[in-house]
């Protein structure tokens, strides 16, 4: 087992976790506004998947995309400043939590109308194929997307035109406050991929290595054969749909059961079991992540607000 890889993944998941804890705190202090959708509990999905991609592969994600942005760019300052609505944010304070973009790192959002970005991801993959480029597009979405027309149309076109895109369903069991069994007529979202057709795999989304391996396989196949692939990652969000949601529709027992699969804990145990690092060494990595987040918070606090004189900019090119 590659110890550098494992420790790197641990460091990334820790960054995502500490970042969102700090974001929630800033929200409670009134420093972050709007909607804030936390990914806490799901981090292994984005971190594992994006670690399997080349830096030139494209990322298209939803409004719950802090971890995707961090996993791709490592830029906690830009993300936190964006949440603070500051000019130094990665979207200049015009996007906010739901619209994190970094064109240079091929982080293509940050889209906040459920399902709408699925055809867009297919279009990015279409462009790669059109230009004979070998880049693959990763498209993330939640289980709640699986009943949207845009989801089906995006998959239909990706299947029809054999586009190099990996669809990654982050099945956290709830579409906002409604459990999957009340909204989906099938047990697994992955079966929906069959008719388009595309291969699919159901993965333990709380195991970062399993995610990395499955997505890595899907990416290699997409790159080699230009075919879409569908991954369903079973996971769970530990917080509400957004910070405004206390999550009262779930039992304590259910939450407890899933928290035993906490991706940080699972990974920490594995690292220790393999003798790659001690608990103290992992603590030190976690402290590093905390320090990076603290730096990002201080950066965001200090950063200038957007200049109101620029409000009409970036409507047209």
């Amino acid at each position: 087992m590659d110890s550098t890889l494992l420790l790197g993944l641990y460091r990334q998941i820790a960054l995502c976790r500490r970042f969102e804890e700090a974001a929630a705190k800033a929200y409670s202090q009134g420093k972050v506004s709007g909607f804030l959708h936390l990914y806490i509990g799901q981090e292994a999905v984005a971190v594992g998947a994006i670690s399997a991609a080349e830096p030139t592969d494209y990322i298209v994600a939803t409004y719950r995309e802090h971890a995707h942005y961090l996993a791709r760019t490592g830029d906690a300052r830009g993300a936190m400043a964006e949440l603070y609505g500051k000019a130094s944010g990665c979207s200049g304070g015009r996007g906010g939590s739901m619209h994190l973009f970094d064109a240079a790192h091929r982080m293509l959002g940050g889209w906040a109308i459920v399902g709408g970005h699925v055809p867009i991801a297919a279009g990015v993959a279409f462009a790669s194929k059109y230009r004979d480029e070998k880049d693959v597009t990763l498209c993330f979405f939640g289980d709640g997307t699986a009943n949207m027309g845009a989801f089906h149309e995006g998959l239909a076109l990706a299947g029809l035109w054999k586009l190099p895109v990996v669809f990654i369903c982050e099945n956290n069991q709830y579409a906002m406050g409604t459990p999957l069994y009340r909204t989906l007529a099938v047990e697994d979202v992955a079966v929906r991929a069959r008719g388009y057709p595309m291969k699919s795999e159901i993965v333990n989304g709380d195991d970062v290595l399993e995610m990395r391996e499955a997505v890595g396989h899907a990416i290699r196949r997409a790159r080699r054969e230009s075919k879409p692939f569908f991954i369903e990652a079973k996971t769970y969000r530990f917080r509400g749909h957004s910070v405004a949601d206390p999550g009262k529709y779930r039992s304590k027992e259910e939450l407890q059961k899933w928290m035993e699969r906490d991706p940080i804990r699972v990974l920490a145990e594995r690292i220790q079991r393999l003798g790659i690092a001690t608990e103290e060494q992992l603590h030190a990595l976690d402290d590093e992540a905390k320090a990076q987040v603290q730096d990002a918070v201080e950066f965001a606090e200090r950063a200038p607000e957007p200049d109101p004189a620029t409000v009409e900019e970036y409507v047209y090119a």
Partner: protein
Amino acid sequence: MPEPRVLSFREALREAMVEEMERDPSIFLMGEEVGHYNGAYKVSEGMLERFGEKRVIDTPIAETGFAGVGIGAAMVGLRPIIEFMTWNFSLVAADQLINNAAKLRHMSNGQFRLPIVFRGPGGAAHALAAQHSQALEALYAHVPGLKVVLPSTPADGKGLLKAAIRDDNPIVFIESEVMYALKGEVPGGEHVVPLGVADLKRPGRDVTLVAWSKMVHTALKAADTLAGEGIEAEVLDLRTLRPLDERALLDSVARTHRCVIVQEGWPFAGIAAELITLIVREAFDNLDAPPERITNLDVPMPYAKNLENVVLPSAERVTTAVRKMLGRPELPRRPAVAGAGR
């Protein structure tokens, strides 16, 4: 520049696409029936043969899907032309146009350009009933981030479409089913009409008739009739609603002191309302009469031919409004064939 030739509207649009695609390999055409069927309205006839399936792409009936694919492709540097068989069908892809295409540049703080043209016929044709007869330009023009273009002649069809394809913004390009066969002189080769520049179709001193798309022809017909009665109407073709040539509109009103907007589409919260706001705010002292608008009646389009004719703006409704504005007595009704006063 090569000599103008007489082309139909659909030929002029096709020429724009063909010339641009010859020039730039990043441009492709995608939509329902654009390839093997040669276009539902034959605008893309022969283009598949010329460019192949890679660049003239038939889609399933999935507007949300292929509009979104176009947006994704444009985000990373291609220049898609997305054809809607009619603009009525764009409504199932409204999320893509309004929530995605129009917002990307702003919410990414200018990190992305979105060079994409959505085009197809809009407005009423003949007896197509409620779901296939909508003039939706007001809906899209409402949204910052979109440009809205509506040519009225074959020459403008070519020139504006070339400008739209070269523009780095999402463009709503609305053609007209009933104008596809309309013929007119079209310059060959490099003929680009910049977006945001209105065209004075006919000068006049007494009243300005403002229109776009096929209502330009309605306004011109009304102006002909009025000329026979000694009323000189100026006809201004806006050509694009966003960006809007405010200067041309205000200058014309300053010359004529009166204005009638001729608009297909419903009156409530329509383009005419916006234009009249502009005129009243910026040219109040120049006005000799309150600005007027002639629009569709405020109902879904009925099927029956006689009812459809009542709903749509007509030259007669325009002339009636102008006479009233000028304090001229309404002429006695004559048979249409009796000649319009010439």
